[in-house]
């Protein structure tokens, strides 16, 4: 049954770069299919269904696409889709290979703390992913303007200032979510006991990186190219936290 939802969702996300004017509809249908998958997982699970690494990746992809769809329906944001959707499709495949899209996953943990911790941290990371996509599009467009690309008006894209502002706002909204997620995690860690692992360390480092972004922007006026590079550099930490260090934390 999980296959019934997985493939339409994957096709919807994966076909985005090829589907032309139907691209956004493909993503919408894909998002609906993945939503149905998540609902089915929640209905069949006897606990929090996304507590495994692969399961959380599945939820993370859904959050990224949900955040993208807030802007992605506009034609001008097609370039952002070209950055975000292939990444989402790839992570979705990884989630499936790890068993994160199967139904009836059992969880050893199920508590409001866990839901809040995972939900907030993943929502924040989804926001950072989108901000990285916006920063990447900013740098691409800025480079085209600097190099006097003659075809620049032929592909609709958001203005540089729009991209810069949206990236900053997305980070500004995501950072409090990460802060709360970390606080909830620390409280839970104190209650249950346990060590401070590498993933936790990198998550805190991620918080500092994005905190620095916000501070530099509002205190010292960092904008434009420098801010975009900073957002992309910070996103490396998100990738490390999401993909490179999860095994110990979730085991």
């Amino acid at each position, binding site marked *: 049954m999980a296959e019934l939802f997985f493939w339409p969702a994957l096709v919807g996300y994966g076909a985005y770069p090829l589907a032309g004017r139907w691209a956004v509809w493909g993503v919408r249908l894909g998002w609906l299919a993945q939503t149905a998958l998540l609902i089915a997982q929640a209905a069949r699970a006897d606990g929090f269904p996304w507590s495994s690494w692969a399961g959380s990746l599945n939820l993370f992809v859904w959050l990224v696409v949900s955040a993208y769809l807030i802007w992605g329906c506009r034609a001008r944001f097609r370039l952002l889709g070209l950055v975000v959707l292939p990444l989402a499709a790839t992570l979705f495949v990884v989630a499936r290979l790890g068993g994160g899209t199967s139904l009836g996953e059992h969880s050893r943990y199920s508590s409001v703390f866990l839901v809040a911790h995972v939900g907030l941290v993943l929502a924040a990371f989804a926001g950072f992913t989108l901000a990285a996509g916006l920063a990447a599009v900013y740098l691409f*467009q800025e480079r085209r*303007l*600097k190099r*006097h690309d*003659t*075809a*620049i*008006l*032929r592909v609709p*894209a*958001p*203005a*540089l*200032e*729009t991209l*810069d502002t949206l990236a900053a706002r997305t980070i500004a909204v995501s950072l409090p979510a990460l802060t709360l997620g970390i606080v909830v995690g620390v409280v839970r860690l104190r209650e249950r006991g346990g060590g401070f692992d590498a993933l936790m360390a990198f998550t805190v480092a991620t918080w500092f990186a994005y905190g620095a972004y916000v501070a530099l922007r509002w205190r010292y*006026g*960092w*904008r*434009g*190219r*420098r*801010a975009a590079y900073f957002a992309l550099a910070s996103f490396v930490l998100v990738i490390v936290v999401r993909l490179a260090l999860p095994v110990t934390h979730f085991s």
Partner: protein
Amino acid sequence: MKLSLVGISHRHAPVELRERVALDPEHAADLARVLAEGREAVVLSTCNRTELYVVGDDAEAVALDALRSLGGDEVAALAYRLADQAAALHLFRVAAGLDSLVPGEGEILGQVRDAHEAGAPGPLLNRLFHDALHAGKRARTQTTIGESPASVSSAGAALAQQVFGELDGRRVLVVGAGKVGELAARSLAARGAVVQAVANRTQEHGVELAQRVGARAVQLDDVSSALASVDVVVSCTSAPGFVIGTADVPPRRGRPLFFVDLAVPRDVDPAVNELDDCYVYDIDDLEAVVEATLVDRRREAERAEAIVAEEADRFRAWQASLDVVPTIASLRARAEEIRASELSKAKLSDEERRAVDSITTQILNKLLHLPTVRMKEAAAAADGVLYADAVRHLFGLEDSVQGGER
């Protein structure tokens, strides 16, 4: 009656000849009124074309004489002469911007509308211009033919929008008080930007332009300080060297500054483009952008041609249906005459008469509806005359139709 078009345009005549027959709106309206004595007439005159649309039996000869009297035999010899469907299709293409120097340019639609309003149209030209305006609007809304910039100044404004998004409230500095710079500044102002300052070597000219665009005038030596508070710079001076160098640009701290350099030789040192947050486009860069977007315009022009052809077909069908209108009118009049006559013979109460009157009217309408539709369809397919002849013969309408012809 025949629709005739006589005109010259940039496609066939050089500017030396076009300017001989170029008319301002007032004179174009006067000429239309003269041509319309016993006819219908509209005169469309822009910098690229002067076209006389006349409806009447002697329309072509009259229009050609008028053009000759304006521009001489040389102009008359180069004039194109089109009739009926060809003339209609031409006007539809003109309204859609497909016959313009830059395909899809938007100004022509307003010029066609103005010419129609100022002219002396009758039923045929009213319908023709109405349909042409509709075709022009459809071509613009259903294709992207008019979206890409058609000139370097509009390309400059479109590129500024790539940096800032909406230009509402963005501040512009104009360097140089010439016509080209003013046009570019106005193009930005049309998109919501505010011309904040005008810098010029000759203070007097700078003040004049500043007053025209609602800005303040500054000395050319003060450009550096003016740059601190603006978002876009339009420069077009006749200075032999750079007017703005890297040292003139204050640190932007993440606030973009966009330069539109229309001067030859260039006013803005290309090294400014290397500064953070600064983007410099000179005349060659802008022309290259316009050229690149022309590819899109031409592709969209093919789609617009299909729309125009569809609208021209519709007009042709309407015009053809006019041939059978007198026959249809006579048929309906004859039927109504018979109905009224028979009804008057019947001995009925008032209430009964009203009921029978209503029923017979409905019967008549239903009976004649299909023949009416079929005759109009046949007219559109060029069989209209045959059908009209048959109907006139079958119902004995010959006399009444002859009396009622257009």
